[in-house]
């Protein structure tokens, strides 16, 4: 019996190894095939290979998929038009993890990426921007907003505001519109994004004579119970609470404040975008939440309306700011490549020099702002729009 079993297993193992041989021989013939296809693509369609990494799965997937979808719409529109510039887009998943982002980036490099969309979220983008800098591949990130993303890298540009700018712009906006006099801040002290915004917000608030009456934090391990932070804000009489964080802890804060009977004005940043799409979230809790974001899906201009309609048609939801940022990135590339007279047969390094020259000198009008310009550090200059959540949707404040 045992012998039979063993011989069966041996036979099975042999069959497996034979199968392995089969696939081996298959792969040896592969280079010839791929050579053919490379020839073909070079002859019939000259395209720029555009790549990016983003969290397509994992806790931040909502941002990555939005950016990918937005970029895809732009690429398809451009390829369908009579433009001489054509793109091929490829997104790789980095699950909002720096190490995986570098692997994803390497996969894109093997694929032959010529220009990059960087990474969608800050931490991974800090890692991939070091790589694009070393490899001389130009990168324009739709949404990685930390300062370290662009710092010291001449070929790394941002489509979104840098974190410090978000903090000071929020303070400025609150002061200009007189939204609150006593301000509480709840922020996440183990997150560069949250800390960056908090620091500049506090600095700017002091300049504008806004009183910060409560300044409390949370971190990864204790991000479930916010009763203490909210009680602190409430007892200090804060009438506006600033929340520089992502939407997931924010949803808990809204629920807990509601059960405490505390209803200040809530003011969020771009990470708040996405709260309305959480499954099971009671959107009445977010009623009246304000946030500063460069994109307003309710805007009535032709370009925005067309983009929103197309996005809804394809993906069944209202695009958020990340989708619009990525869409703008592709169009900014198109404009820059056209102006530079670039052709797809150029190497990544040649394109990199051309793009640095173009981006620092051009003015771009997109969904997320008109008259955008970039300085040599890679930071964008555009004006943010105030938004408020009403009846479960975003409405522009201005």
């Amino acid at each position, binding site marked *: 019996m045992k012998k039979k079993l063993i011989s069966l297993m041996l036979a099975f193992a042999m069959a497996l190894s034979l199968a392995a041989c089969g696939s081996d021989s298959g792969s040896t013939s592969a280079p010839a095939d791929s050579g053919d296809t490379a020839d073909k693509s070079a002859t019939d369609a000259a395209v720029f290979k555009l790549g990016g990494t983003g969290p397509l*799965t*994992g*806790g*931040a*997937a*909502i941002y990555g998929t939005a950016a990918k979808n937005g970029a895809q719409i732009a690429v398809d529109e451009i390829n369908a038009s009579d433009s001489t510039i054509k793109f091929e887009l490829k997104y790789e998943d980095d699950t909002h993890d720096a190490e995986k982002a570098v692997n994803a980036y390497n996969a894109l490099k093997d694929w032959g990426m010529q220009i990059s969309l960087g990474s969608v979220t800050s931490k991974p983008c800090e890692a991939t921007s070091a790589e694009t800098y070393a490899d001389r591949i130009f990168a324009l990130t739709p949404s990685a907003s930390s300062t370290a993303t662009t710092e010291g890298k001449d070929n790394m540009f941002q489509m979104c505001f840098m974190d410090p700018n978000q903090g000071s712009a929020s303070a400025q906006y609150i002061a200009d519109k007189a939204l609150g006099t006593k301000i509480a801040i709840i922020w996440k*002290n183990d997150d560069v994004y949250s800390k960056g915004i908090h620091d500049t917000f506090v600095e700017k608030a002091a300049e504008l004579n806004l009183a910060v009456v409560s300044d*409390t*934090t*949370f*971190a*990864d*391990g*204790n991000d*479930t*119970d916010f*009763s*203490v*932070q909210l*009680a*602190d804000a409430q*007892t200090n009489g804060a009438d506006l609470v600033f929340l520089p964080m992502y939407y*997931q802890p924010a*949803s*808990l804060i809204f*629920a807990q404040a509601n*059960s*405490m*009977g505390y209803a200040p004005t809530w003011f969020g940043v771009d990470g708040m975008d996405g709260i309305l*799409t*959480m*499954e*099971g*979230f*009671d959107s009445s809790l977010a009623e009246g939440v304000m946030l500063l974001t460069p994109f307003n899906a309710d805007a009535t201009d032709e370009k925005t309306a067309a983009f929103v309609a197309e996005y809804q048609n394809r993906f069944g939801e209202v695009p958020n700011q990340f989708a619009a940022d990525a869409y703008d990135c592709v169009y900014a590339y198109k404009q820059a490549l056209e102006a530079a007279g670039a052709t797809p047969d150029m190497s990544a390094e040649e394109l990199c020099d051309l793009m640095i020259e173009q981006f620092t000198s051009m003015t771009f009008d997109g969904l997320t702002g008109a008259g955008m310009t970039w300085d040599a550090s890679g930071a964008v200059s555009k004006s943010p729009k105030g938004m408020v959540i009403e009846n479960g949707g975003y409405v522009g404040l201005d």
Partner: protein
Amino acid sequence: MTFLNFLISGISLGSIYAIIALGYTMVYGIAKMLNFAHGDVIMVGAYICFFAISRFSLPPLVGILLAMLLCTVLGIVVERLAYKPLRSAPSLAVLITAIGVSYFLQNAALLLWSSSPKVFPNFFTVTQSPAPDGTAEQTVRTGIELFGGQLKISFVTIVTIATCIIIMLALTWFTGRTKMGKAMRACSEDKGAAQLMGINVDATISMTFAIGSGLAAIAGVLLCSAYPTLVPTTGSMPGIKAFTAAVFGGIGSIPGALLGGLLLGLIEILAKAYISTQLSDAVVFAVLIVVLLVKPAGLLGKQVREKV
């Protein structure tokens, strides 16, 4: 009044830690292994209950029972596949396997249910019917109010504490009075001797995991009712805190888990409120170190002298 409010927040957080810690301590006390995957079984339980209620609109009680049932099965399967083959292996190997199972469950949840956070429905509510004369609208109450609304205790907290005490008493009775419970204690003292006495050690340990996982499902539902976002990593951090609570109260001691959990929650909230929100975890663990220095076996743990 603020202090009382903090006390209530502390107790509600602590009761969640306590209910998770009960599962940890139960498995450790009997199988003498740290089941680090406990926190992730909690997450699975919460997901099952969530889908039962929001997707298949089953009544909450059915959802909880279903979650308990499936988690019990999951606990037994995990024990059979991952821990049983290592019964005679050194405890370090089992510990690492438990960490592996924890990651496996998290990633499986990520694939099955995706990462986008789900908001858990709160079904511990009382709906007040509208007054007949139309003076008051229909309201949904989530807790009781004392002192004219200055003090609020949510129903979830009350239910959690009551459940904790019931589970604690039931476990104490079970391990002390029933035949199976006695077999469990015998296994925990000496597996070899227990086997010689005719106790089926494997079945006993499987039973321990089944009970531990069933408790995890209840803990998951209560955790997500109190703090309603649900993601695949929901269970991991509360799991670690609850493990700390179990050590704090004396791991292996059932009343110790309850005491440790409540104290941990209270210290965490009070440290946040009166010391600093940035340092609350540091304070919690500093207290833990001091307690372990004074009482190495934890607050209610038994000092077992190793015989040489």
